[in-house]
């Protein structure tokens, strides 16, 4: 924390020439965005938090479940060990979404965006590069986390003959699907951040769209509420994170497809604005 002593300056600065060829390519911008993501402690902390919420959520839920294990055939049949292992996913959506928003808005808050766009004046590769870097980091971290949560939980439940395996119908889909949904939420956050260019606004808007809409739909009369809810972003993606199928929902892949469609529409809008707006 001590103020740094300034290194001495050479009397006559010498900046040698650089003759090697230069050219901006999409893959190079992806590499640059990957460097940015991994070199910023704040994004690494959010990534780690997301991982810990998923993995830790499974562990804690399994330990709590031990104190009230189901008895009787009906209760055992209703017991969902996969759901239990993934109980941290809903909470991890918050950190995943915030991570996505901050990756984009951090550039605007610090003025970094102007340097970034001076280096990549065609602009759009920056958006694709950020999406690729964030998607890769999230898929790796969240797949590891959901698998860890799943196996830890099943190991704890196994002595009580309540565990399941990835081979059971719908289980693998829920475990890997949860990682996909978390990645999707992070990307929706990134796109929201690109639209609003401000961290507070971006996070509020993202959570408003994800949770606010769902809560607001609850005020509608019963049947209508049910009908509207299944098309909302949070609810449409929810089925992919569970083995069971909520009655009247769109189903795991149709629902997630709709979620991706929402994200794609927002992405299109943010790409259009990134090209047009002053940086």
């Amino acid at each position, binding site marked *: 924390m001590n103020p*740094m002593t300034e290194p001495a300056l050479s009397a006559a600065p010498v900046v040698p020439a650089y003759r090697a060829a230069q050219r901006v390519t999409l893959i*190079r911008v992806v590499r640059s965005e990957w460097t940015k993501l991994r070199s910023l402690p704040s994004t690494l902390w959010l990534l780690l938090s997301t991982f810990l919420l998923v993995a830790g959520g499974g562990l804690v839920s399994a330990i709590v479940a031990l104190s009230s294990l189901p008895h009787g055939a009906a209760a055992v049949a209703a017991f969902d060990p996969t759901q239990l292992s993934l109980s941290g996913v809903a909470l991890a959506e918050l950190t995943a979404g915030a991570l996505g928003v901050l990756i984009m808005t951090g550039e605007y808050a610090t003025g970094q965006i102007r340097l970034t766009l001076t280096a990549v004046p065609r602009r759009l590769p920056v958006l694709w590069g950020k999406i690729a870097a964030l998607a890769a980091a999230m898929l790796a971290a969240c797949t590891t986390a959901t698998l860890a949560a799943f196996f830890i939980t099943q190991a704890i439940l196994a002595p009580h003959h309540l565990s399941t395996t990835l081979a059971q119908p719908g289980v693998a889909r829920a475990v890997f699907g949860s990682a996909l949904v978390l990645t999707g939420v992070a990307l929706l956050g990134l796109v929201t951040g690109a639209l609003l260019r401000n961290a507070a606004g971006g996070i509020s808007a993202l959570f408003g769209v994800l949770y606010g809409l769902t809560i607001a739909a609850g005020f509608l009369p019963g049947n209508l509420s049910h009908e509207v809810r299944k098309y909302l972003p949070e609810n449409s993606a929810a089925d992919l994170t569970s083995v069971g199928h909520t009655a009247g929902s769109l189903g795991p892949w149709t629902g997630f497809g709709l979620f991706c469609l929402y994200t794609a529409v927002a992405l299109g809008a943010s790409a259009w604005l990134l090209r047009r707006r002053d940086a």
Partner: protein
Amino acid sequence: MIEVRGLTKKYGDKLAVDGLTFTVRPGIVTGFLGPNGAGKSTTMRMILGLDAPTTGTATVNGRPYREYTAPLHEAGALLEARPAHPGRSAYHHLLAIAQTSGIRRSRVDEVMDAVGLREAGRRRAGRFSLGMGQRLSIATALLGDPQTVILDEPLNGLDTEGIRWVRSLLRSLAAEGKTVFVSSHLMNEMSVTAEHLIVIGRGRLIADTAIADFIARASHPAVRVRATDPQALAAALRGPGVTISAGPGGELTVTGLSTDQVGTAARTAGLTVLELAAQTASLEEAFTAMTQDAVEYRTPAAGAGPSQKTSQKTTEGAQR
């Protein structure tokens, strides 16, 4: 080479940049001078394709900057007070920018060495002093060995040694044949750094001139004189092309006459001269007076009349 033609930027109904036309030539340091809020930064952002002009064009080395596929080799820019994301190390900041164009890691080390940031390279940019931050910004600007260098207030926050260092850097870049375009709101700073000056006020071009011409035109010599009877002295000095203004304590400021002429006239009138001195207006004063005209020109815009015409002439006169 930077070519700006009829560049205009409107924010709402406020004109930030108003019909600027100028050329920044390679091989010399060109100063971009104007008071704060004159539109310097906006102009620089438009040159770099960051802000879209309302009308007009700006090209770097012959083409709009946004069209380049190797942009860092065309232009290097220092734009913000904050040099990098405060949470990222200087090394990773430079590396991320270098990677977009496929610039090698060895080049990142090279520019960090050149600005003396080798040891501090792994520390977070947020902990840098103002001076070190400016050096990181300069390293960023020079990463791609650009033909054109665009620096917005690069001397801000630097100590004397740092200022001297940046000056010698700018001169050596110009000597290599690069185009060097540097903004500042301080005239004195530019008078020792730049060879050519582009002066703007309220978004309009006020002067586009070699620094030597600017200095010659700006320094109107005046004579400060105090004598036993100021009224009588003023009467004795009056003549064509002579202006006299009275100051406190009977002091007169006279233009259009030399100290010799004033002294002789006083003796002829039988007055005792108590104080007599030649006075040269500072460049800073000349610059303030010049940009003041631009300010006056805009303020009474509602009542467009003959008075506006006069001050417009003043600005054009300054433009040559």
